[in-house]
């Protein structure tokens, strides 16, 4: 065993880094134990030799310099920025919701106004509610279902009557067919007449054969033709703006 091997064994023994066999060998050899003691003194002297800590300023400066080159971001600042971003997004979202809400309320209000006007117009109709119900019932009836047309504009009553005569005669056959169609699809017929005024139905009317819209002296009118019990036909002209009877005449 040379000196290097001796030192290595003694040093490892000191660090408790030996096998059982090596430990037994050192324990049994006074020269090796002596070398262990010498190295122990050196080790203890090194451990006892205190290193004076760096000053707080030096430490803070070194750490600050290291942090300055760090690729690590400041998470606290990042969190604060994220919180600010969240507040901004929430504000924008709240504003959008508010705008949409206000728009919805306005639209709903406008829709309600339109509905109210329609109700008012219906209330202003010369027909009573019972008459309206009767008219509705009549309208839903196959006999009173009609086919609507756009008749045109006329300067006076005679011109309009003449046009209705021609048109209603031409549609006489079609009226019966339309009545049959309406019987097959009453809902379609109802929807066709639902936005129109309820005409003043003659008391002896047995069916309606013609219904149309026209313009008389610049004002929109509704034109209805009824077949009476005696087989004659009667024209009923109603103002669309007020749903009031303008005139009635036998064709």
């Amino acid at each position: 065993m040379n000196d290097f091997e001796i030192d290595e064994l003694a040093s490892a023994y000191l660090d408790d880094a030996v096998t059982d066999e090596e430990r037994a060998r050192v324990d049994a050899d006074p020269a090796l134990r002596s070398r262990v003691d010498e190295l122990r003194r050196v080790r203890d002297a090194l451990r006892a030799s205190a290193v004076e800590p760096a000053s707080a300023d030096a430490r803070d400066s070194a750490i600050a310099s290291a942090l300055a080159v760090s690729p690590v971001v400041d998470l606290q600042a990042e969190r604060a920025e994220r919180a600010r971003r969240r507040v901004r997004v929430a504000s924008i979202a709240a504003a959008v919701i508010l705008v949409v809400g206000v728009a919805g309320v306005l639209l709903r209000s406008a829709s309600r106004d339109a509905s109210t006007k329609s109700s008012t117009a219906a209330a202003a109709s010369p027909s009573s509610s019972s008459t309206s119900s009767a008219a509705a019932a009549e309208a839903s009836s196959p006999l009173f279902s009609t086919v609507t047309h756009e008749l045109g504009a006329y300067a006076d009553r005679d011109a309009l009557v003449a046009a209705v005569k021609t048109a209603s005669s031409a549609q006489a056959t079609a009226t019966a067919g339309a009545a049959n169609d309406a019987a097959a699809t009453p809902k379609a017929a109802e929807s066709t007449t639902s936005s129109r005024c309820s005409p003043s139905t003659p008391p002896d009317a047995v069916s309606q054969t013609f219904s149309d819209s026209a313009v008389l002296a610049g004002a929109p009118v509704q034109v209805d033709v009824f077949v009476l019990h005696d087989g004659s036909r009667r024209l009923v002209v109603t103002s669309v703006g007020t749903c009031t009877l303008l005139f009635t005449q036998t064709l």
Partner: protein
Amino acid sequence: MTPAASTPASRKSRSTRSSFRRIRSDADDATLVADAQRGDRQALDALLRRHYDRLHALCFRLAGNRADAADATQEALLAIVRGLPRFDGRSAFSTWSYRVATNACLDELRRRRRRPDLGLPDDDALLGADPADPVDELVVGELTMDAALQNLPPDFRAAVVLRDVCALDYAEIGEVLGVPPGTVRSRIARGRALLAARLGGNPEPASDRPTPEP
């Protein structure tokens, strides 16, 4: 008292900072490392503060004087911060940071050796010390230890310092230095033997020592 120090906001800020530091000091290394790797600068700060004195002691023993130790410690911290994103946690942070610091110090030593003004550590202080004075005797003793360490080859010095100053075991030292445990054992033994000769613990040459029984 400064105006800022007297405001409730500044008191609250100091209190928050103080409680934050307390919470951080309670966290273990693994937690701080994980937080730092996720981008928490405060965790990184706490981690470096916790290990600074340990790393400085290592660098001082390896470098041999305060100025070089300060430079080496600074380099070590920079290397740790730059390398932290790649730290995979397979070894303890303390072991890994020792390895980074040891490499930084050895690099610093190599640079220093290339400089022309080489000398024993803190020679100026040694010249003024009186060994007869009990206080100066202590100073002389420490300087002698530093000087003795500086006379060791860097590889031996690193092994001895990591074992006797940093208290790492052979496997950890092997990990730090990148050598097998057998090499660590050999380097520590040679380093200690040279220190013993230098410090007078074993004045006679190794060849004059009594030979153990075969």
